């Protein structure tokens, strides 16, 4: 057998589950090519101008395809490419230094100035300059020539890393899956991919470059692996797994529209997780019993959204839910979700540091803006608000007191505001063990962090990945304790971590007594199917 026919297996990490089979298509990386670097004189200037023009067109197209939230991120970048004061000196420098070095030097200088400005909003925008720098360098390298759009049809897209910007730019209804050499399983992009049902494998390493464009490959995101030129045995294995575990598309489509109930007829509420209001367009509110988790981190992607922008985003989710309950989680930054200029830098262990509610309480000026937007949105529909990463009852009380203050302030200004139901994420063993002592209106179990903290296993750490086991009896015990606390106090308990979206784990959660699950939009059908066969 020749080398060309031998299967090449590359191991990575699951970013978002699923299986895809298709051609490999490498997306351009940001590395400038040597040819562009060596260029001087008038040609260098013209080349840089052409690259800026191309970047400008790309951004315009991207803004056209984005909603308000994403568009506002890119509009600033587009405006910088219309800024003669910024560009002209760089064009002049390009004559002597060449296009790529001139661009890199100037943008690096600006990035440093933004970062070192001592101004939070400005420092947050450094990420946009970084994104812009790469976009123009890519255009200079000539590898992001506007490929024919049909190019991505049915392909598995490969990149060194998918940034949010890059992910936004891709029409995922056409490509089948994504694979990256770097990246983390818990990054924003993984979140976006899960919500859209795009299979994503990250951390595949440099071996990925050995798979050429056009090669047929099997992306087994359930197992976090990519198989180039997959063997017949491999294909059969995946086919078997698919038939055993997953219903066909028609069955899922039928199932997801009906309310969920166990084989015995006991109703189970299936809510949906929302990370980006745009993902809601793909599903109907009738398919679910409300929104069990709205992540607000995207509103703070590289900057801090204002009250008005936040209010609009929250109202958009409430309006979509059309009278069904919506749980919005306050900013969950820190840990694996850093925000430049906001989250602490240099923590020895960010997962045990200033994150979630701890960080929000430490930065009341930012937290107040979010609480004001939430209090105003509460008048619009059945809103519930929960806080992440709580360990002690006094943290929750501090949150409640701040919320009350914000509402008093709004009242004084004559702004209509209301205190919504307040709940907590149960993500730490401490919170799970003494759940009943927290004076909350509801509990939502965040299984991802709960597993990580209970088992002392970092998510996405390859060397200990086998120890990250949602079925571990210690995890089940903690979940059961929260359910018991909910029963004893008459408070609602739901679970919104990845566990709820995994049909194979659903029986375990129902065994533990949970009757409210909040799942990724793409998992509604498969989870309802798992519920309906429970107890059969």
């Amino acid at each position, binding site marked *: 057998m020749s080398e060309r026919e031998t299967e090449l297996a590359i191991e990575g990490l699951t970013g978002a589950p699923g299986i895809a089979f298709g051609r490999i298509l490498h997306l351009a990386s940001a590395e400038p090519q040597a040819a562009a670097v060596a260029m001087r004189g008038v040609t260098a200037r013209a080349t840089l101008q052409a690259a800026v023009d191309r970047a400008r067109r790309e951004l315009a197209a991207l803004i056209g395809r984005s909603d308000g939230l994403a568009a*506002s991120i890119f*509009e*600033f970048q587009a*405006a*910088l490419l*219309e*800024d*003669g*004061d*910024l560009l002209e000196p760089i064009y002049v420098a390009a004559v002597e230094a060449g296009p790529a070095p001139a661009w890199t030097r100037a943008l690096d200088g*600006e990035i440093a*100035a*933004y970062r070192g*400005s001592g*101004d939070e*909003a*400005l420092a947050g*925008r450094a990420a*946009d300059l970084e994104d812009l720098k790469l976009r123009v360098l890519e255009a200079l390298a000539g590898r992001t020539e506007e490929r024919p759009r049909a190019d991505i049809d049915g392909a598995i897209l490969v990149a060194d890393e998918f940034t949010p910007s890059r992910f936004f730019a891709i029409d995922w209804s056409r490509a089948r899956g994504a694979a990256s050499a770097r990246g983390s399983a818990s990054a924003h992009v993984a979140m976006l991919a899960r919500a859209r049902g795009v299979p994503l494998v990250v951390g595949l390493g440099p071996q990925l470059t050995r798979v050429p464009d056009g090669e047929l490959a099997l992306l087994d995101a359930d197992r976090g692996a990519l198989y180039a030129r997959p063997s017949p045995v491999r294909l059969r294995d995946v086919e078997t797994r698919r038939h055993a575990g997953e219903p066909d598309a028609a069955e899922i489509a039928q199932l997801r529209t009906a309310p969920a109930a166990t084989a015995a007829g006991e109703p189970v509420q299936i809510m949906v997780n929302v990370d980006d209001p745009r993902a809601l367009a793909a599903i109907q509110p009738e398919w679910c019993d409300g929104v069990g988790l709205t992540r607000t981190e995207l509103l703070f992607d590289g*900057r*801090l959204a*204002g*009250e*008005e*922008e936040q209010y609009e985003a929250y109202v958009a989710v409430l309006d979509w839910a059309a009278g069904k309950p919506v749980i919005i989680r306050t900013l969950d930054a820190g840990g694996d979700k850093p925000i430049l200029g906001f989250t602490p830098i240099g923590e020895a262990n960010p997962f045990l540091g200033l994150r979630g509610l701890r960080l929000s309480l430490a930065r009341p000026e930012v937290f107040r*803006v979010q609480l004001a937007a939430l209090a105003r949105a509460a008048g619009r529909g059945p809103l519930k608000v929960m806080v992440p990463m709580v360990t002690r009852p006094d943290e929750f009380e501090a949150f409640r007191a701040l919320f009350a203050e914000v509402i008093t302030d709004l009242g004084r200004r004559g702004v209509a505001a209301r205190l919504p139901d307040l709940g907590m994420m149960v993500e730490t063993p401490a919170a799970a063990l003494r759940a009943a002592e927290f004076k909350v209106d509801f509990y939502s179990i965040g299984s991802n962090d709960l597993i990580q903290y209970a088992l002392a296993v970092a998510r996405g750490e390859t060397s200990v990945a086998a120890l990250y086991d949602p079925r571990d009896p210690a995890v089940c015990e903690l979940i059961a304790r929260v359910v018991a606390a909910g029963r004893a106090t008459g408070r609602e308990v739901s679970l919104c971590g990845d566990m709820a979206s995994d049909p194979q784990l659903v029986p375990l959660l129902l065994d533990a007594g949970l009757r409210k699950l909040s799942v990724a939009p793409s998992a509604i059908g498969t989870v309802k199917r798992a519920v309906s066969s429970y107890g059969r």
Partner: protein
Amino acid sequence: MKNNHRSVRRTLTIGNPQGLHARPAVKLTKLAKEFHAHIRVAVADGQFVNAKSPNAVMKLKARQGDAFAVEADGDDAHKAIWAIADLVARNFDE
């Protein structure tokens, strides 16, 4: 002194809570570009920068409550100042 009567200056106050962050900065520069006049802006007694440069306007770091000076030169200077004052008064429609 031909230029003098066409040169207009006005001091405004930034009212929106987030200050002159990216979105307002983009709105301001887009509006400024609609006029022929040279338009410069400054925070309090600071350096004037080109109001048509989003990068320069961003770096002013203008915050809520800051005095915001606008200076315009050219045929449509009056119109420009009036339009910018209106945008600032509307808190950049934020």
